[in-house]
C-alpha cells in the first residue's frame, strides 16, 4: 500500500483546509475585498514555511525516506501562465474554491461541489482538446 501515505497526508490537508475555513466562499470574497487578513495570513505563512523547508532540504541535501535524491522541477513559462491564471482567478471568485477546496467541500457535504467538480473536469478536458490552438 505505497499510496496509503498519500491518502493520509491528503486527509490531513483536507482537515486543515476545512478547519481554517479557506474552503468557504465567504472567506474568498473577504480576501478579494481586502476586508480581513485571514486568507493572506494562511497563504503567506504557508509559503514562508514551505520556503524555509525547501531551503533546508536543498542545503542539507536531504533524501526521501526511501533514500532517493529529492528532485524539484522548474515551472515552465508560456503565455498560458498569465492568461490561464486570470481565467482561473475569475473562476476562483465565482466558485469560492480552487481545486483542493472543491474536493474538501464535496467531503463536507456541499452538493453544489459535485457540480463544480464536473464543470472543472469539463474545463480541463476542453483545455486538452483546444491546447494546440491556444497561444
Amino acid at each position, binding site marked *: 500500500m505505497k499510496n496509503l501515505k*498519500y*491518502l493520509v*497526508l491528503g*486527509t*490531513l*490537508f483536507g482537515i*486543515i483546509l*476545512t*478547519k*481554517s*475555513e479557506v474552503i*468557504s*466562499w*465567504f*472567506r474568498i*470574497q473577504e480576501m*478579494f*475585498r481586502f476586508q480581513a487578513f*485571514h*486568507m493572506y495570513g*494562511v*497563504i503567506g*505563512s*504557508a509559503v514562508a514555511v*514551505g*520556503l524555509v*523547508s*525547501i531551503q533546508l*532540504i536543498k542545503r542539507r541535501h536531504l533524501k*526521501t*525516506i*526511501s533514500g532517493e535524491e*529529492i528532485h*524539484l522541477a522548474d515551472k515552465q513559462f508560456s503565455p*498560458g*501562465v*498569465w*492568461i*490561464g*491564471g*486570470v*481565467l*482561473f*482567478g475569475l*473562476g*476562483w471568485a*465565482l*466558485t469560492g474554491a*480552487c*481545486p483542493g477546496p472543491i474536493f*474538501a467541500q464535496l*467531503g463536507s*457535504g456541499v452538493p*453544489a461541489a459535485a*457540480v463544480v467538480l464536473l*464543470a*472543472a473536469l469539463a474545463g*480541463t478536458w*476542453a483545455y*486538452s482538446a483546444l491546447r494546440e490552438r491556444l497561444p
Partner: protein
Amino acid sequence: MLDFLRQPWPWYVAGPLIGLMVPALLLVGNKALGISSSLRHICAACVPAGLPFLRYNWRAERWNLWFVAGITLGGFVGYRLLGHPDHVAISAATVRDLRAQLHLTDFSGLLPRELFALGSLAHWQGWVFLVLGGFLVGFGTRYAGGCTSGHAISGLSNLQWVSLVAVVGFFAGGLLMTWFIFPLLFR
C-alpha cells in the same frame, strides 16, 4: 485539545501546517504539492478521447488521486466530525457588501445557499457560479500549469518566478470578477 480542534483554526496555525505539506510530500515520496493535475488524470483515465494531452501514463501519477481522495475525506472529518460554526466569521464589512451588492441574506454554511443550492441551476446564477465558475477553474489551472497549491504554495516556496506571474494572474482574475463583473451581474 478536542475543544481547540473543534474551533475554527486561526491563520497562524493553519498556514504553517499547509506549508509543511510541501516538505512532507517531498520527503515521503519526492512529490510536488499540486492538486489541479488530478483533474487531468481523471480526464485521462475516464475520457481520453484520443487527445494527445490526455494520452500519457496517468497510472504513474496515481498518488495524486489518492491525495485528493484524502482531501475529500478530510473535508468530511473536518466539517462533520470536528464540528463547525453555523456561520463563518467573516468581517462585518464583507457581510454588508454582499448584502448590498449580491442581495445575499443567508450567511450560514460554507457557501451562500442563495447561489449554491442545487435549485439555483434553475436560474442564471447557478449556471454562472457553479458551471461557468467550475469550468474556468478547470480550464484556467491547466492552461496556467497549476493552481493555488501548485503555483502559490509549491511554486513560490521554490522561488519560481513563473509561479509569481501565475499568482498575480489569479488575483487579477479574482479582483476583476469581484469588483467589476459582480456589480454588472447583479445590477
